[in-house]
């Protein structure tokens, strides 16, 4: 049946204007439940002052991103058994590279305004979004399905990116991935935005974004593909001018 583990949750706490510190909460958990469940129980039963963001609890809203034992995770789908052990510690901190509102909640305004700037689409035709298990005789163009984009805008990729740690102007993996999904053919005005020092060229191939993405976006691949698109575009322009 369900096991019981005794763990220590180490949660980063920070009210406005303070330096962050850790509070420890000893609690009983079921290793088959999620890190978010443990955080929620801290708030519900142990410490009502805890602030954290969460909404859907099934990896579609992107609100519950946190660093769990130093790795970016969506806490609603991260099993406790995968990140600690009985009598172990579970460290929970807010995402990096975004200002902290309080405790585990961060302000991702910069991510959203950049996504708006490049016109990232939240819904797109199924022909452009990859479909799992398409039926063999099924022609997606025929059915005209619309899909919610894979990117949850959760910010894990930006938190994990070493370039984003030192550059506040860097557009960041999620934004560049969104630009790639649109493509320079469809949105030629994006060229001036992404072919810049703080656009695709700020990426230094750490591939951490793809490593932490919980939603199959593969931002690293998209950034490299966007570079190809840019180079093709620039070369093309060269010949067009000649």
């Amino acid at each position, binding site marked *: 049946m369900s096991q019981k583990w005794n763990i220590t949750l180490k949660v980063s706490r920070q009210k406005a204007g303070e330096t962050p510190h850790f509070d420890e909460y000893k609690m009983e958990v079921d290793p088959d439940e999620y890190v978010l469940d443990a955080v929620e129980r801290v708030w519900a039963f142990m410490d009502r*002052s805890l602030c954290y963001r969460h909404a*859907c*609890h099934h*990896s579609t*809203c992107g*609100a519950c991103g946190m660093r769990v034992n130093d790795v970016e995770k969506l806490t609603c789908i991260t099993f406790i058994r995968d990140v600690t052990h009985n009598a172990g510690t579970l460290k929970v901190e807010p995402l990096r590279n975004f200002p902290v509102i309080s405790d585990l909640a961060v302000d991702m305004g910069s991510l959203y305004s950049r996504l708006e700037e490049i016109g990232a689409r939240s*819904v797109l035709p199924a022909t452009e979004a990859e*479909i799992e*298990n398409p039926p063999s005789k099924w022609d997606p163009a025929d059915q005209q399905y619309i899909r*919610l984009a894979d990117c949850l805008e959760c910010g894990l990729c930006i938190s994990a990116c070493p370039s984003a740690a030192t550059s506040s102007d860097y557009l960041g993996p999620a934004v560049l991935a969104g630009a790639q999904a649109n493509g320079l053919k469809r949105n030629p005005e994006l060229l001036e935005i992404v072919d810049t020092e703080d656009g695709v060229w700020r990426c230094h191939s750490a591939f951490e974004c793809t490593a932490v993405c919980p939603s199959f976006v593969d931002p690293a691949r998209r950034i490299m593909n966007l570079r190809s698109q840019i180079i093709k575009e620039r070369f093309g322009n060269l010949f067009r001018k000649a």
Partner: protein
Amino acid sequence: MSKPQAIIVGAGFTGTATAHDLALRGFDVTVIDRGDICNGTSGRTHGLLHCGGRYAVKDQESAIECIDENILLRKIAPMAIEPNGGMFIALNESDMQYREDFISGCQACHIPIDEITPQQALALEPNINPKLLTAFLVPDGTFDPLRLALSFAASAKKNGARFRTFTEAKSLIMNGKGAVSGVNVVNRATNQKYELRADIVVNATGAWAGEIAEMAGSIVQVKPTPGVMVAYEPRFVQRALNRLNKPGDGDIVLPQRRMVVVGTTSFEVNELDYVPVLEEHVKIMLERGAELIPGIKHAKMRGKYMATRPLIGGGMGRGSARTFKCFDHKETDNVEGLVTITGGKATTLRAMAEKTADVVCEKLGIHSACVTKDVPLLSYRQYYVLPN
């Protein structure tokens, strides 16, 4: 003339939609929530943009509300919706006995349905149970819960509404005449306590409506009724899948990005702030889900969680109507300045807001009609981009 002031407690579907409606009607709106947008029931909604077919037999009031709002939401919030329709499938004789009632019920509620053969159904959705006996195409959809609420919130913000998240209502401010004139709040991010004054306080806390009403010495009979949801990988179907039967447990499977979510169950609780996932309920979802989509039996589970419905209709559990109600506390318990809106379904959020805003305007003697049917909502991202 200064704008009438409204405070909305609760930033879920009802709170954000009401903020949008009141802001358009010229109100100065402040929305407070002890967490962030949709941190309660609304965030964990299944995400089914109901066509109403589920309620067309036993709860036609809800069914009609659903189909009307379904059509409206597709128009005003396309950025948060997958409008790919849905299917009702019958798997056995018992289901087939429901067929006639389903057809006449949908007709009575002007829900367009299209009966297709099992072969046609399998051509559209190869992963459904191949033993299905019949299928109906219906105008269901999938919506992203947080992004739908954010779209309303963004539009409200554009029209001047202020959102104070992580701000908890500690008590209501009563003036000498037993009327509500504001809210004592604490900003949980800064530990700052302060007062918010208003001409009207709207209690949009859904399942928690009773707790807020109690602050004014009022009673709201809301029955918190949670249910389980289980998400599986991968996305087995491209459209919503319903069981053709009397509404029961685990008879809806909804695609959401690269997963499907099976829901739900129904039981009552007293402890609202945390509802643990019950393993027996998860088992039911696995079994019932696998009846609709055999592949679910061996699918990888991606998440499981509980969401607490605010039920207000008479009857118990599934017998409860899924309609909504707006209580003017002046009428129910002689407390002026407070209005509660609860019950309802995610799909009817705009209608709930319209009703609430109508009641509020009538109370304050303001003549302003609802225009939300025709106003396309802003991109949900604007909520974070627009200044506070």
